[in-house]
């Protein structure tokens, strides 16, 4: 019976340490490895090659040389053809782009009716006719797209102009309205102001006129 934890630990570690290797494990491992190797070689590229290609790659010096020459030639041809094709296509695209650009001089969005009319009626040039059918269709498509854009802008609803900024006087008036009272504001009207001044004068005369008349009488 195990009495202490130390003894239990020792026993567990001894159990881990004392494990025997299973019988014929090595043979089983080697068999598994060989199975794996043969499975890989079966499923590899070697078995999917045609027979003549396998013979070409045979491990003789002349066979290898011939094989490498053939592979290099095929690779060179395979790489050159797309490059040539692409270079030819780039040249065509550049000339087409130049043509379209020469027709659209200046900023495009400001399309006036006259411009629209002129762009819509640009006759196809001789070089356009020289283009092959597919390319010509593409160029015509580009021109049609530009025309439709200009026409759409021409027929678009006009928008009202944005409000102008306030003048100096208007700004002063606004400040007055917000700072002074209604009486001062009424004074801005010249008729009202004249009437008010006349009333004040009359009042003044009335008061001081009586006082001055009394003084004269006393003297």
């Amino acid at each position, binding site marked *: *019976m*195990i009495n202490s*934890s*130390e003894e*239990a*630990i020792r*026993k*567990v*570690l001894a*159990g*881990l*340490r004392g*494990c025997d*290797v*299973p019988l014929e*494990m*090595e043979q*089983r*491992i*080697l068999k*598994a*490895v*060989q199975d*794996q*190797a*043969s499975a*890989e*070689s079966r499923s590899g590229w070697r078995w999917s090659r045609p027979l003549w290609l396998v013979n070409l790659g045979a491990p003789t010096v002349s066979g290898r040389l011939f094989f490498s020459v053939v592979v290099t030639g095929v690779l060179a041809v395979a790489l050159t053809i797309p490059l040539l094709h692409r270079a030819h296509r780039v040249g065509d695209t550049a000339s087409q782009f130049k043509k379209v650009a020469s027709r659209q001089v200046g900023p495009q969005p400001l399309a006036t009716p006259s411009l629209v009319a002129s762009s819509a009626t640009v006759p196809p040039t001789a070089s356009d006719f020289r283009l092959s059918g597919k390319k010509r269709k593409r160029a015509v498509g580009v021109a049609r797209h530009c025309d439709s854009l200009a026409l759409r802008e021409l027929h678009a609803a006009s928008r009202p102009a944005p409000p102008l900024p306030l003048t100096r006087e208007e700004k002063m008036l606004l400040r007055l309205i917000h700072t002074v009272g209604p009486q001062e504001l009424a004074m801005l009207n010249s008729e009202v102001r004249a009437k008010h001044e006349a009333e004040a004068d009359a009042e003044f005369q009335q008061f001081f006129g009586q006082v001055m008349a009394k003084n004269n009488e006393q003297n």
Partner: protein
Amino acid sequence: MAPIEGCGLALYSVEGARSELDLTALAETYSGLLFRVAYSVLRSRAEAEDVAQDVFVRILKRSPDLLTVRDLRVWLIRITWNLSIDRRRRIRPEQIDEDFAKSLVATNAPADEALGDAQRMKAVLRELEKLPRAERQVLLLSTVEELETLEVAKVLGRSESAVRALLFRARTRLRERLDRGEGK
């Protein structure tokens, strides 16, 4: 077991495959060691054998890399260790640990004693898994007889003194935790 350099390694190809190493010699030299390393983690003979097999299949697949490996023995142990840990995550370790604990109990002991011992063993294994990773690794690798402290240090990428300290701490911590568990 002697390292690979000591066994007169003959270079030939296996079944016409691209392997340049003598896998037979490799298997003879290392299969036992790798099995025990795997067993220390998995505690199941079948699983440990599977891992050892898996390691050799990987060697076959990565045979070109082997030429650049400086210490083949350490490299193989590391692969085995990692594969074992991966496999332990996939299997049900509780059941395996229970079987292992039962296998450690004396067969001629009375039933109640055997049951108590098996419970203690299971507790040890449970606490072992709860140890900090470095301590657990050192403790488990130290159970592999063929591995010296220097090699354990190389496998874990630590110094020899660090390995000794970790081993001491692991045993102390394990004992303390078990005593505490029994006290409760």
